[in-house]
């Protein structure tokens, strides 16, 4: 591996990258954060100073090499610095999902044996204190925001600033220790531990070494030509591997600037302020933006609407081609330019995407219309396919080869093979070391040659070499008549309708497919408002007969398109119902990254699934719900079950 280290000029740890950046880009901004309504910024030199002071302070608190430190909070520069400070001391940062309830946090905090927790504010402190008695290993809590904490017992609790002060004061004594700790770190030192949200079972702690992170950051930065002048907005959960790669890995590798929003609610305005050049969002985000634009256009005047649809039609015809450098007539180019002045430019500015040079979406399939909409505006939105275990990158779409229905070609330095079962395997420098304290899971995922099982079924498209993902391989099954059952594929087709937020398909070993639907409160609520339909709650709107009819229309359209698919025409939806509540991570029905946990949904709503299958037209049910603060309650509802038209299956293609 010495050659690999040479390729990065000996920059084999994140703290070393920080030192390089402080020396090379000392006056360039490294982090920004909006506070008190004004964007504050820190240069690389200032960041190095902040990180150093905190690292010394952590030494003063006797943080040992190899210890684990939990990091809990929203994206804040100080929390990113905390991660690097923890690394500098030789300990391992473990970022947690900040919206997790205390009972969920217990497992991770206990499993990683965190000695320290660095948290954002009182909310997080309260959560940790609530479960402290179950965490004998946890010694110290360090908080950023002191509000409301004045009266708390401070024997094992400290303000972040105080720790830094202590570090600065003890500089003489502690600096040599820090230097020694830094000197022994190399490519094989653990860089970070991230817990996979896990659609099944307990979360697993994915151990990523400096090699994984630095190599993945290097090759992906080169792939998209990211450099010191770029900027991003960090708003996705810090516990998610993507955020770690963007906001620490690539940021420290290239020296670009990471901005943090003022609060979760101001993200849209902050995006507009910052105008990032590099942007990442899950498909859900782009769906939301498109829905919002369409809702606002409904309220706009006639002239505006005419101009919008006229130029959007034109963009649909030539926009993507211009972006891909295809041949487009001069007349069309002029018309596109005019559209850019009148429509596309202002629209992109509204969305905060005027300057986006590279944009990615991943995690789920994105609707082809949504994808085409953003690309036609001239936003270089691409797809990638990745995993925590791969330090994100498995496949990416190169510029000029961007499509909605594939996830791209193998990322630089990644090898991919498809097993006979259809499961996708990969191998790269970015692959994880192991699952923490879980050798069985490690062995069943990663073989001795370094091939990692993705758990996804997929195939390479002939001719282009692009990878297509069908579904989680364990979710793919057979129906009673032997036809293929791939739930995700059908659910995605449903979710591409703005009115449908989420859906769950059932049909393994059964004759007919049936589905649960979650409506999108924003889109359906707006429709209700425009049609003077009053409703008091989500539940009431979800049960409205007209809403049921609209959703039935969508389901039948999906059935019609499935009927033409020779592989999946058995998956047409015969009956469906609209759930009385949104599937929610707090209730365990989804992961924190918002993927449906099928097993839990199966168990929890067994009565509803039964009713879908036994032909009844109505079902009364009581469902337990968990509120944000962890309290539990229940809601009861009577749901109508709808029949949908199914279409004759087309014979298997000849």
């Amino acid at each position: 591996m010495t050659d690999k280290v040479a390729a990065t000029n000996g920059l084999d740890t994140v703290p070393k990258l920080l030192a390089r950046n402080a020396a090379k880009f000392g006056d360039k901004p490294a982090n920004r954060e909006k506070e008190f309504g004004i964007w504050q910024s820190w240069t690389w030199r200032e960041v190095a100073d902040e990180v150093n002071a905190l690292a010394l302070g952590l030494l003063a608190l006797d943080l040992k090499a190899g210890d684990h430190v939990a990091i809990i909070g929203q994206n804040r520069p100080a929390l990113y610095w905390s991660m690097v400070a923890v690394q500098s001391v030789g300990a391992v940062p473990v970022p947690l999902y900040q919206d997790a309830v205390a009972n969920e946090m217990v497992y991770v905090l206990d499993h990683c044996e965190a000695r320290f927790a660095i948290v954002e504010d009182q909310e997080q402190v309260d959560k940790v204190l609530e479960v402290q008695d179950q965490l004998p290993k946890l010694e110290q809590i360090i908080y950023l925001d002191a509000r409301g904490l004045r009266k708390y017992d401070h024997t094992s609790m400290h303000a972040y600033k105080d720790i830094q002060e202590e570090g600065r004061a003890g500089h003489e004594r502690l600096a040599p220790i820090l230097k020694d700790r830094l000197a022994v770190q190399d490519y094989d030192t653990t860089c970070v531990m991230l817990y996979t949200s896990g659609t099944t079972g307990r979360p697993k702690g994915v151990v990523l070494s400096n090699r994984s992170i630095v190599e993945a950051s290097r090759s992906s930065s080169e792939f998209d030509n990211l450099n010191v002048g770029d900027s991003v907005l960090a708003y996705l959960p810090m516990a998610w591997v993507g955020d770690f790669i963007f906001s620490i890995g690539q940021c420290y590798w290239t020296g670009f600037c990471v901005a943090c929003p003022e609060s979760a609610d101001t993200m849209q305005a902050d995006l507009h302020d910052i105008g990032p050049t590099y942007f990442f969002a899950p498909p859900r985000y782009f769906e939301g933006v498109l829905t919002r634009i369409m809702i606002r256009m409904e309220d706009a005047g006639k002239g505006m609407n005419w101009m919008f649809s006229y130029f959007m039609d034109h963009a649909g015809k030539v926009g993507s081609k211009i972006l891909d450098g295809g041949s487009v007539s001069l007349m069309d180019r002029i018309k596109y330019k005019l559209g850019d002045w009148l429509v596309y430019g202002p629209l992109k500015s509204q969305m905060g995407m005027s300057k986006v040079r590279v944009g990615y979406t991943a995690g789920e399939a994105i609707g082809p219309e949504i994808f085409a909409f953003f690309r036609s505006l001239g936003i270089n939105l691409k797809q990638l396919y990745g995993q925590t275990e791969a330090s994100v990158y498995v496949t990416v779409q190169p510029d000029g080869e961007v499509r909605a229905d594939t996830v791209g070609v193998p990322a630089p330095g990644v090898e991919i093979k498809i097993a006979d079962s259809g499961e996708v395997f990969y191998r790269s420098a970015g692959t994880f070391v192991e699952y923490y304290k879980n050798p069985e899971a490690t062995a069943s995922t990663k073989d001795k040659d370094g091939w990692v099982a993705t758990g996804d079924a997929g195939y390479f498209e002939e001719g282009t070499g692009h990878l297509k993902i069908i579904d989680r391989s364990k979710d793919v099954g057979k129906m009673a008549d032997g036809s293929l059952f791939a739930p995700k594929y059908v659910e995605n087709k449903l979710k591409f309708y703005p009115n449908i937020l989420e859906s769950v398909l059932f049909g393994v070993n059964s004759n007919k497919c049936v589905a649960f639907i979650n409506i999108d409160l924003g889109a359906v609520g707006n429709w209700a408002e425009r049609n003077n339909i009053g409703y008091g709650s989500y539940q009431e709107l979800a049960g409205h007969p007209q809403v049921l009819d609209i959703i039935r229309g969508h389901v039948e359209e999906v059935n019609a398109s499935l009927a033409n698919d020779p592989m999946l025409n058995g998956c047409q939806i015969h009956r469906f119902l609209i759930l009385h509540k949104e599937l929610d991570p707090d209730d365990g029905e989804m992961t924190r990254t918002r993927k449906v946990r099928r097993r839990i949904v199966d168990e929890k709503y067994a009565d509803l699934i039964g009713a879908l299958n036994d032909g009844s037209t109505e079902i009364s049910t009581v469902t337990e719900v968990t509120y944000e603060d962890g309290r539990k309650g229940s809601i009861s509802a009577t749901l109508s079950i709808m029949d949908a038209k199914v279409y004759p299956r087309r014979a298997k293609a000849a």
Partner: protein
Amino acid sequence: MSLDEAKTEFNADGGWTTPDGREIGEVVMEMKNITLKFGGVTAISDISFDIRKGEIRAIIGPNGAGKTSMLNVINGFYHPQEGQIIYRGKARSKMRPYEAASTGISRTFQNVALFAGMSTLDNIMAGRQLKMHKNFFWQMLRFGPAMNEEIENRKFVEEIIDFLEIQAIRKTPVGQLPYGLQKRVELGRALAAEPSLLLLDEPMAGMNSEEKEDMSRFILDVNDQFGTTIALIEHDMGVVMDIADRVVVLDYGKKIADGFPSEVQANQAVIDAYLGVAH
């Protein structure tokens, strides 16, 4: 937070330390035998109670008990026909609300009274009015000393916005905001005057349980962070018992109970007033 009188150790000035470590100090405002009449109607009759420094003092009672009238007496909007108000050791003469404001009393209203067409930021800035002293000429030009003054005050307002977590609606006209948020903006405007005594008229009326929880947290934080003395009127008994240090109960313009939440809760007159009495 509720505590037993028996277990509390009182200081020489009658103050005490709450179980969560806050210092309740000397009496800042004392109402002595207040009677307020509107023509033939007696809204408040012969009521006396005091408010101590640093405490959260709740005034509760059924509809029409005279709670809002009492608050209006405290901030100088109504003038009682009888009785005496002693504020910071001095008997207060008849005064107007703006004079009360300049002595450090500010308030919020039962039915939100914001400038609906102005943004959240401007509404809270309006609460800084008493702190702005530069002359009209400079303010008109937004130049020189007036500009520096504006920056100073804007800084303070931004701290309030941060404190109340309303950054996302900083520039939204308040008329477009849901009720719960308008209440929060109104609290922000009252805080902008840096009050030493804050009067809240039903801060949680019409809120759902999550909004109530947020508002309770803010009230406790204001009290803790800035040491502001707070007098509030509230209907939600659960909330009152949770956050108040002492409670005074009114019914038909008369005081029927006064004391720690635990005592008030057990008081038969209070139970009767709220649940009705069998005749």
